[in-house]
C-alpha cells in the first residue's frame, strides 16, 4: 500500500464504477488504508465494461480466466487498496461489516439512496457503533430531494449540470464530453470533502454524515456561469473553440492524420509574435486585428492563413515554435502519445505497477507531486477478496476456523457468482 500523510486513517469503501473509486484512489495514494468492501458480483459487466463493450481494456484484449481481476480501468482505479468481499444481505456479513466500521474512520458509498438503509447499515445505525465515524453517501442527485431516486450515470448527469448547454460547435450543435466528466469532478471533490470532514473531526471529535451530490459538484465547477446570468441577464450558449477574451484561440490542423495543435493568443504582444512566427508581419499593423476585441470579431479572417502555416508542420514543431516566443500552444495528444510524452516521462508521471493476474502496466499517478512520493510502496489493484483473511484475522481478530466457516457459508468469497 502507498505510504503517505494519511497513514493513520482507515476508509471502508463501498463505492463502484468511477467517481467513488477515484475519490478513494486519491486518498489511498496519499497513504490511507482503504478497504474495498465488495460484493462478489461487483466486478461483473453491470459495473465494469466487458471486452466487447470496450476494446483494449483487457491486456492484449484478452479477458483471460479471471476477467474480474484483469480489467484495466478497474485496476487503474483501485491500486493501493485492499479487497474484502462480503455478503451484506446476510446477518454474518452485516456483523463483520459493523466490526470493521467500529475501527474505521470513514465509510463512503455511492449506492442509490435507499440501499444502505435497506441493509440496516444506515448512518443512524453505524454511528451507534462508532460515534466519530465520517460517513459519505454520494448518489448522483444526492440523498434528499425530489430526484433522490433517479438513476445516474455520466451520460445523463452531465446534461443536468449545465455543461452541454454551453458546449458545442455552435448553438444548434450541443456536445457533451463523452468522458463522464461529472465522475471526474466528483472524484476530486469527494476526496476533499472526506479530508475536510476528518480535519473538522480532529478539532471537535465529532462524526458527520455527508450527503454529497454529483449534480452539485458539476455545477460547482461552472459556478461563474450562474452568477454571470444573474449579473447581465444573458443566457450563455456554446461558442465552439472561441474564447471570451483570447483571440485567435482554437484548434488548427497540422501535418499528418487527425493531428492538431491548440493555441491561445492572450494579448497584443503575443499577437505580434504570432504574426512573425507564421510569416504575416503585416497583420500586426492591420486595424482589423489591432486589439483583442477586434481580433475576437475578426478571428475567422485569420484562421485560414494560420492553418495554412500549421498544416505544413508537425504539431510538436508548431507547439515548440510558438512556445519559444511565449505563446500558449499545445499539441493535441492522442492516448498513444501520453505514455511516451517526454515531459511526463521525465517527471515519471506514469507509474509502472505489477499485478499477479493482469501483468505490469504503467498507470497515471497522483498529480500532487511531493519530494518523497513513496512510489516504491505502491501496490497494484487487489484481486477479488484478496484481503479477506488479512482483514478478518489480523484486523478484526477472527480465528482461522471462523473465517473458514464464513467462506463455506458464502459470506466471504474470492470468486464471482456463477
Amino acid at each position, binding site marked *: 500500500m502507498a505510504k503517505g500523510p494519511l497513514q493513520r486513517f482507515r476508509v471502508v469503501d463501498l463505492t463502484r464504477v468511477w467517481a467513488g473509486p477515484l475519490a478513494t484512489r486519491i486518498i489511498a495514494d496519499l497513504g490511507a488504508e482503504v478497504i474495498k468492501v465488495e460484493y462478489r458480483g461487483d466486478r461483473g459487466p453491470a459495473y465494469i465494461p466487458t471486452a466487447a463493450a470496450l476494446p483494449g481494456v483487457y491486456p492484449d484484449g484478452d479477458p483471460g480466466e479471471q476477467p474480474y481481476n484483469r480489467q484495466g480501468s478497474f485496476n487503474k482505479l483501485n491500486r493501493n487498496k485492499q479487497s474484502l468481499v462480503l455478503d451484506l444481505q446476510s446477518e454474518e456479513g452485516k456483523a463483520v461489516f459493523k466490526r470493521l466500521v467500529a475501527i474505521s474512520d470513514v465509510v463512503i458509498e455511492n449506492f442509490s439512496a435507499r440501499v444502505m438503509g435497506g441493509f440496516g447499515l444506515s448512518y443512524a445505525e453505524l454511528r451507534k457503533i462508532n460515534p466519530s465515524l465520517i460517513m459519505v453517501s454520494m448518489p448522483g442527485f444526492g440523498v434528499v430531494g425530489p430526484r433522490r431516486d433517479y438513476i445516474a450515470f455520466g451520460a*445523463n448527469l452531465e446534461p443536468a449540470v449545465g455543461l452541454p*448547454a454551453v458546449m*458545442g460547435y455552435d448553438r444548434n450543435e450541443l456536445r*457533451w464530453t463523452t468522458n463522464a466528466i461529472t465522475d471526474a469532478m466528483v472524484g476530486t471533490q469527494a476526496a476533499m470533502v472526506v479530508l475536510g470532514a476528518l480535519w473538522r473531526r480532529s478539532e471537535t471529535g465529532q462524526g458527520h454524515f455527508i450527503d454529497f451530490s454529483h449534480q452539485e459538484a458539476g455545477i460547482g465547477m461552472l459556478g461563474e456561469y450562474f452568477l454571470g446570468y444573474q449579473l447581465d441577464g444573458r443566457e450563455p450558449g456554446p461558442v465552439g473553440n472561441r474564447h471570451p477574451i483570447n483571440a485567435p484561440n482554437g484548434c488548427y490542423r497540422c501535418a499528418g492524420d487527425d493531428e492538431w495543435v491548440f493555441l491561445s493568443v492572450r494579448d497584443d504582444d503575443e499577437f505580434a509574435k504570432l504574426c512573425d512566427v507564421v510569416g504575416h508581419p503585416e497583420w500586426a499593423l492591420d486595424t482589423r486585428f489591432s486589439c483583442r476585441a477586434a481580433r475576437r470579431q475578426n478571428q475567422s479572417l485569420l484562421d485560414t492563413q494560420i492553418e495554412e502555416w500549421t498544416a505544413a508542420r508537425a504539431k510538436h514543431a508548431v507547439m515548440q515554435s510558438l512556445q519559444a516566443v511565449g505563446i500558449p500552444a499545445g499539441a493535441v*495528444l492522442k492516448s498513444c502519445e501520453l505514455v511516451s510524452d517526454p515531459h511526463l516521462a521525465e517527471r515519471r508521471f506514469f507509474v509502472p505497477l505489477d499485478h499477479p493476474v493482469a501483468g505490469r502496466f504503467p498507470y497515471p499517478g497522483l498529480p500532487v507531486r511531493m519530494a518523497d512520493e513513496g512510489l516504491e510502496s505502491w501496490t497494484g489493484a487487489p484481486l477479488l477478496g484478496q484481503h479477506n483473511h488479512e482483514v478478518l484475522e489480523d484486523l478484526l481478530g477472527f480465528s482461522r476456523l471462523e473465517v473458514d466457516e464464513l467462506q463455506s457459508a458464502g459470506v466471504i468469497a474470492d470468486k464471482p457468482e456463477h
Partner: protein
Amino acid sequence: MRVLELGEHVGAAYCGKSLARWGAEVIKVEPPEGDLARGFGPFKDGQPHAETSALYLYLNGGKKSITLNLEGSAGTALFDGLADRCDVVICNLGRGVVEGLNLSDYARRHPEKVVVSITPFGLTGPYSHFEGTVGVALAMGGYMHIMGDPDREPLSMPGWYPDYQAGAYAGVGILAAWLGRDTHPAGSILDVSTMEVICSLHQYTTVQYTHGGVVRKRRGNRFDGLYPVTMLPCKDGWLGMCINNVGFWERFCLMVGRPELVDDPRLQSPSQRYLYADEVDELIGPALRERSAAELFAEGQEVWRLPVGSVMGISELLGDRHLEERGFWQEVEHPEAGSLRYPSAPFLLDGSRFAERRAPLLGEHNQEVYGTLLGLSQEEQARLRQMGAI
C-alpha cells in the same frame, strides 16, 4: 489554518475557496490593480467593473483581500512576514514567482507548513517553462482528441475545468499534508501540474491504450463502443441517455413508442447497437423530436426507471425545484454586485449547508492584515502605499 493565497484566475482561488468553506482563514494576495479575474466578464449590467466580475465573485467568497506588489524588495519582505504567520501557501503565479519568492526554501525550513504550486506543466521537466491555458491543458492532457466530431477539429471545453481540477487536487494535497503533518512533515513544495491533472482524469482512454493498444477516438455525441449512450435532439432541447443494458433498452423502446425494437436481433446488446448506431438514431430519433426533453427526463426517470437527463440550461438550473429543496442556492449580498444566488458546496453536512460568504473588495483587509496581523503602523502602511508596494 491560516492560508496565504497567491493566485490569478481560477486554480489557487478555487483551492482557497474550498479551504475557506471548511473554516480556514484565507488571505488572498492581489496585485495593487487586482487579480486578473476581476477583469473577466460577465459583469453586472454588462459594464466591466473590478468588483462585479462573476468569476471573481464566485471564486473568492469568504476570503480576505490584501494588495501586494510582489516585485521589489519591499514586496518580498512583506511576503516573508506574511508567510511566517501562515500555515499554508498556495501559488499559481508560475515558476518564476515560486523561485523569486524562494518558496522551496521556505517549505524546507518549515516542514510543519504546506506549500502548493499549481502551474500548467509543473515546476520541472522540458515543458515547465511553457505557457498554458484551458485549451492547452485539455490538448496536452489527452482530453481534446476525444471530444467533438470525427471529421473536424476537436472541441475544447468552455469554462475553466482544468484549473478547477488542479485547485481541487491542490486542496486535497493541502488537507492530507495538514492531517499528517506530525508524522509526515512535507518539507518540499507540493507540485501540481495541470497537464498531469487532466491525464489522471480519463475514464478509459489511457488504459485502452496501455492494455490493449487501442487509441480512443472522438465520435461526436456517441460514447465510443456502447449505444445508445449519447445525447439526441428533442422537440425543444436535448436528452442525454445511458442505455447500456438489456432492461434499460426494453423500457426505453416502450417509452418512445417503438416496442418492436425490443426484439430486433441487431439491437440486443449495447455493443451490437453501437455497430448499428446510425440505424438506432433513425429509429428512435423521430419519436424523441416530438417530445419535450424536460418531460422525457421526468417521465423516463419516474415512470420507466431509465438513466436519462435533459440538457439543463443555466437559468433553468437556477430555478430548479430539486436544487431549491436541497437548499443548494444561497442568497448572498455584496456591496457592489448586489444580492445574488450562489452555488453552495456540493454536500449537506449533517443536513446543513456551510453558509456561503461574499467575495472581498480589492484590498478590503489591508488594514486588518498589515496593521493588526503584521503590526505595521499607519505611517509605515502609507509609505508602502506611496512606493507602490501595497
